[in-house]
């Protein structure tokens, strides 16, 4: 049922190969790399979960949240609190996610009635609120000291099986499994009718109402899912670092979600995951030269946003479109970069884009 099956199939096939390759690398990596590399990749995966959830709101629903770090912080603190009292990794993670989702429900109810800059400012304000609470509520959160001595508790499936994850390598595999499940679920969500309705809301809020979509309800659901994903990323941080401090819920960490997503690409599902890898790599490389690594990161994001509005994923897809699909033999002008084609473009479509008669 596709108009241009050849290029699309080629793109899907290439994508499958890339995904398969990425998975193989992730599986083999712990056997050939240092503990520190594994630690960095764990951070990439957590950042990917965090940014992919954020992009459900940003790229798919059209809402720019500047308060995702609040949910990240809540996930981390609740998980830490559980692990300090009851050493079960599963209980800690699920508790962290549930708490983040619950707070997202409350903040979302108050925020999603607004859009654009008003929504962004509200989420920023709520994020700072959560940050202050974590900072000041010393009795529960440990104040500026945070919570320390969090055990990397074993993965206890309610007595049925107990898997220790004490070493970085075993924890790596745990995070990898969680990441794959989280990505699979999110992939299903964005390709579901609900996911299509979110994209409809992004494109035209008014029209969405007039085709029978309950806009506010769907926005709220997207907000809760994004909050739960941020909470999941945060909950993974607590046992990894064995300490949590209020800094993780600072607004600048909300900004990281935005940067990572812009870096990787807003309009491609895996864009934020690519961004997460780039973000950690760039930071690690630049930090060795200068402490002002954010300056370099900023420049890179600016160049990417100005040059390829779809981020790195778009840059790669444009290149693919230009050199592989169209082919050098055809000598056709390439699809202009500013045409943000979310999917590979078919033959008839490409003609429409160039303004020719089909």
């Amino acid at each position: 049922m596709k108009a241009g099956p050849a290029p699309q199939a080629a793109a899907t096939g290439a994508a499958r190969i890339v995904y398969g390759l990425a998975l193989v690398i992730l599986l083999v990596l712990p056997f050939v790399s240092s503990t520190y590399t594994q630690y960095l990749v764990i951070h990439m995966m957590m950042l990917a979960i965090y940014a992919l959830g954020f992009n459900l709101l940003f790229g798919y629903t059209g809402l720019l949240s500047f308060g995702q770090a609040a949910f990240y912080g809540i996930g981390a603190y609740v998980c830490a609190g559980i692990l300090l009292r009851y050493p079960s990794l599963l209980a800690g993670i699920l508790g962290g996610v549930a708490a983040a989702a619950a707070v997202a429900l409350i903040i979302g109810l108050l925020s999603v009635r607004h859009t654009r800059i008003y929504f962004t400012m509200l989420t920023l304000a709520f994020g700072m609120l959560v940050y202050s609470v974590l900072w000041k509520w010393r009795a529960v959160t440990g104040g500026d000291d945070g919570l320390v001595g969090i055990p990397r508790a074993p993965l206890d499936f309610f007595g049925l099986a107990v898997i220790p994850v004490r070493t970085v390598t075993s924890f790596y595999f745990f995070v990898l499994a969680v990441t794959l499940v989280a990505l699979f679920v999110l992939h299903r969500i964005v390709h579901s009718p609900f996911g299509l309705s979110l994209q409809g809301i992004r494109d035209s809020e008014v029209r969405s109402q007039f085709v029978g979509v309950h806009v506010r309800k769907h926005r709220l659901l997207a907000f809760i899912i994004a909050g739960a994903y941020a909470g999941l990323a945060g909950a993974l941080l607590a046992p990894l670092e064995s300490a949590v401090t209020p800094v993780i819920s600072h607004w600048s960490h909300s900004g990281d979600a935005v940067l990572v997503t812009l870096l990787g690409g807003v309009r491609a599902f895996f864009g934020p995951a690519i961004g997460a890898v780039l973000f950690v790599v760039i930071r690690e490389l630049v930090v060795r030269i200068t402490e002002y690594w954010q300056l370099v990161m900023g420049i890179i994001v600016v160049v990417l946003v100005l040059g390829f509005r779809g981020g790195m994923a778009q840059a790669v897809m444009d290149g693919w479109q230009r050199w592989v699909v169209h082919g050098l033999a055809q000598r056709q002008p390439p699809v202009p970069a500013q045409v943000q084609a979310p999917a590979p473009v078919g033959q008839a479509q490409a003609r429409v884009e160039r303004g020719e008669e089909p």
Partner: protein
Amino acid sequence: MNTILQAEGLTKYFGRMAAVDGVTLSVREGQLTAIIGPNGAGKTTFINLMSGFLTPDRGRIVFRDQDVTKLPPAARVHLGLTRSFQIMTLFPDLTAEENVLLPILARRGAVGRAFTPYKADREAREEAGEVLQRIGLWSYRDTPARLLSHGDQRLLELGIAVATRPVLCFLDEPTSGMNPQERRAVLDLVQELSASRTTTFVIVEHDMDVVFSLADYIYVLHRGQLLAGDTPEAIRQNPRVREVYLGEEVSG
């Protein structure tokens, strides 16, 4: 013929100016109804009130024996009341197919499903295919709406509205900015859909030729008030209508 929509004393103020001022009218099932009036007569405001885009300051809207005055747009759509827009409000980054699929999925109560791919919903996609064939955009089904020509976008606009399978559909100047050929295509489509008796259309138009060739019944608005409501023949003869609006256009 049954009355399916009744507006009673509908009033909407913008500041101190009444854009719609105590309008009472009814729409009968299956009757292609047109609303005309000079610029600033309150036609678009009236549609906005009927579709739930705006809430009236006074008055009542009854749709199929149900008071819908306070209902939000999405709830009205589920009852079978929708509209198209004069200024384009498509889903620009979605493909033509996805544009008509969304209302179909919403109507079937499928937009709450978050774990099955929408591309696997065969029945919904078949229905979307029928709509696309009907509006003649089947061959552009994988094209993002923003890349369609202006005329095709207007056809898609109509396609989205009918994909909700409305009982009553308001069309706000469906042919604005179209060339004569495209205009013909849209009007033929409206006439065809109207003749199939599943949807009653209320059309707001500027073009008098369109109105008189298409409509079964015409309401004339003037400065927010209802001036007349009658058959096209009677409207043509109505001296008050001639005076305020039609003038030589009709007599000539």
